[in-house]
């Protein structure tokens, strides 16, 4: 698997548009994208570049970089923007079609819909826009490639490629969809994710090679590891396989920079003694009914305590959770002192359409936050996306300004993930009637 990077410095002028698009098309093909996906990334680049021709600061260059990551290609566009309007990246940016003054930004909206992920980062006076397009993989066929049986003895180890695919198939055939990461719909993608190190995997196998269970984990952020499983196949209730799989994961992450291990979708086999229950979120089962799952967390080190930013309306929730979980925290209040602020808010959205699940995250806060949050809820509900979450990073004071907009739009805080971002993360869940679930 490659992790190479190629870059292009180009002036944001229309005559260079073919240079930029050709570069991205050739690079993404070289990094393994098929023609359809390469074209989608190319068209997204065309829209962004065209926009930059009008918006980037005069005389500055745009740096376009493409990196291969095995199962996806990441394109980064770095530029100096004079009037770059990130509102176009809101899901609700479609409203701008009606706004004659903002038709230029509709290109950005189109670009955002053509890729699997986009994100912004600021670096000094430059903006970095990252676009990610994943490879296309054959979907799971619906058949398990091997049968499962109770194992008399087993060892836990990293699987080879075929074992990994068999493990993914067994998991798909024996567990409810909401307990499985969406990547498992594509066994080949999971193999590539393990190959580049984005996933780590362990399976329990007996001497002849039968697979009794497995677990995967990935680094979710600098300090957080998320795991999926443990998945056990036909093992007796007294089996110690689940503990052995969790131990293998802990052995791998215990002396790393990660501070916490979390499972948002714990299977019934998870050894409860190993974890701290964080709080519950609702997920959709195959029959459409909602089920509540308690997120399991394990801190990996002795906690040194920290400070978090919070809106006063969030304090009762935080005090209760910090007390229950014995996390030492100094809660610093963030209150409006009448200071000037940006007029527009921007949210990013991560979709898992198979689970009717969307997670919103703040990109930018502005005075229209209540309206923007409300518009997102309305848009997503219209698309029958019933599980709406919002993640707020308490390590970034500006994100706490969204608290009022969330509470007033029917969201309620459900769980606190210690060190989930720059600080602790609070996950809000939208309740359909706005009165709590």
């Amino acid at each position, binding site marked *: 698997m490659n992790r190479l990077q190629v870059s292009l410095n180009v002036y944001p002028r229309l005559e260079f548009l073919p240079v930029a698009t050709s570069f991205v098309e050739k690079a993404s093909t070289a990094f393994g994208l098929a023609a359809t996906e390469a074209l989608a990334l190319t068209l997204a680049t065309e829209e962004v570049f065209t926009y930059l021709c009008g918006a980037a600061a005069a005389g500055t260059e745009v740096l376009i970089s493409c990196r291969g990551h095995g199962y996806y290609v990441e394109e980064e566009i770095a530029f100096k923007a004079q009037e770059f309007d990130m509102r176009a990246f809101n899901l609700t940016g479609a409203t701008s079609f009606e706004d004659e003054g903002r038709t230029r930004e509709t290109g950005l909206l189109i670009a955002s819909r053509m890729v699997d992920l986009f994100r912004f980062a600021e670096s000094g006076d430059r903006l970095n826009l990252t676009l990610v397009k994943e490879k296309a993989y054959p979907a799971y066929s619906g058949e398990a490639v091997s049968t499962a049986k109770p194992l008399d003895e087993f060892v836990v180890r990293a699987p080879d490629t075929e074992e990994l695919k068999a493990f993914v198939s067994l998991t798909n055939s024996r567990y409810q969809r909401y307990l499985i990461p969406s990547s498992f719909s594509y066994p080949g993608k999971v193999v590539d994710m393990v190959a580049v190190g984005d996933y780590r995997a362990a399976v329990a196998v007996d001497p002849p090679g039968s697979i009794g269970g497995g677990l995967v984990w990935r680094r979710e952020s600098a300090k957080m590891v998320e795991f999926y499983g443990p998945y056990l196949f036909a093992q007796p209730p007294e089996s110690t396989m689940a503990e052995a799989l*969790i*131990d293998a994961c*802990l*052995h791998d992450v*215990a*002396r*790393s*920079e990660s501070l916490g291990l979390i499972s948002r979708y*714990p299977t019934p086999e*998870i050894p*409860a*003694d*190993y*974890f*701290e*229950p964080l709080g519950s979120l609702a997920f959709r089962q195959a029959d459409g009914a909602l089920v509540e799952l*308690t997120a*399991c967390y*394990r*801190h*990996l*080190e*002795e*906690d*040194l*305590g920290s400070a978090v930013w919070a809106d006063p309306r969030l304090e009762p929730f935080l005090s209760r959770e910090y007390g*229950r*979980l*014995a*996390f*030492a925290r*100094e809660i610093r209040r963030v209150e409006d002192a009448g200071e000037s602020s940006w007029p527009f808010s921007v949210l990013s959205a991560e979709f898992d359409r198979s689970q009717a699940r969307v997670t919103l995250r703040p990109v930018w806060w502005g005075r229209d936050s209540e309206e923007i949050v409300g518009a997102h809820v309305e848009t997503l509900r219209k698309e029958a996306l019933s599980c709406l979450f919002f993640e707020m990073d308490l390590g970034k004071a500006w994100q706490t300004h969204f608290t009022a907009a969330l509470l007033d739009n029917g969201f309620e805080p459900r769980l606190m993930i210690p060190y989930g971002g720059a600080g602790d993360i609070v996950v809000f869940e939208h309740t359909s009637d706005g009165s709590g679930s």
Partner: protein
Amino acid sequence: MTHVALDRLLPEYVRKFTAYIPSKPDEELMKLYGCSRLFRLNNNENALGPPPAAQEVVRKYPPPRAAVYPSGDVYYLRYKLASLFGMDPNQFIVGNGANEVIGFVIKAFCEKGDNIVTADRTFAVYEWMAQFSGFEPRLAPLRDYAFDEEGLLARIDERTKILFLCNPNNPTGMYWNEEKLRGCLDRIQDRLIVVVDEAYCEFVEADDFPDGLALIREYPNVVVFRTFSKMYGLAGLRVGYLAGSPDVVDAIRRTCIVYSVNALAQEAALAALGDQEHIARTRIMVAEGKRFLKKEIARLGLPMIVGEGNFVMIKLPMSDALAYRKLMTEGVMVRAMTGFRVPNHIRVTVATMDAMQAFVQALKKVLESQVRSARALGSL
């Protein structure tokens, strides 16, 4: 502000390494966790403090002497060590805690492509020091909480320069007796340096525990580590030492930092060394504490691993990191063992009876609150 090109400047093995972040000062922790007193049962310090003569040295140390450099090679302490153990002063190197001498040995013997071998669940600094110096640490799983000879030997190859044995092992307290240690040394012969870390040797009660220093004459590739931080209660002054055969120590000395042991530490260690009454008093405290804990922890129905050393390890029916935080709110600081790759265990320093009682009381409360919280939330 311009950015330093760390991506280019940092070697990959340093880039990948995560810095160890030590605990905050006690006062800060007490503020954070809202407790009015704190029993430190996390670092295996000696609750009785240093021996009386060493305390006197600290008390009467003349402030103007702080302006004068210490003995660069810790002259008098090396001579006293030599006299006490019947060796030559040049067979000793004293460092700023035993951690520093670990670095001396690795720097002296390892070069690009080399590796070190040790256990997976032992004192972490051997592994860390090798890792951030660019050498591969090869880790053999413990067997029955003790170093596994076969597992260690299987990981040795022609690029292995050092085998680190922690005897007794921190955190399990298990040890290799003389026969076992000799057997392993005979199999290794002189292929590599064998470090025997005896940080807790003064606590050992077992008759068949080997004296590493006595083995050096017979096995010149053996290097022994000892410390003044545990039994001698001088952890705050940082003094540790290594001993080996003259040729080996001469080689290690080439990588040493001289003047790293401060003058007060040198004098306190000199006064402390060999105080048999202090050792006896401490052993009595540890024996009483272990008896008490065995009885109380058994009442709680928890498995406890009691080996040699002034610590025990307890298996909990909950996450050790959560237990750490809850015990902190009760004013008791223990060591959570996930970082040692022993999940759901805590290591507890055996200290004075008031601390042991406070620990047991706090642990009872934590376990009760865990049961209540599990009931309230229902099973996962």
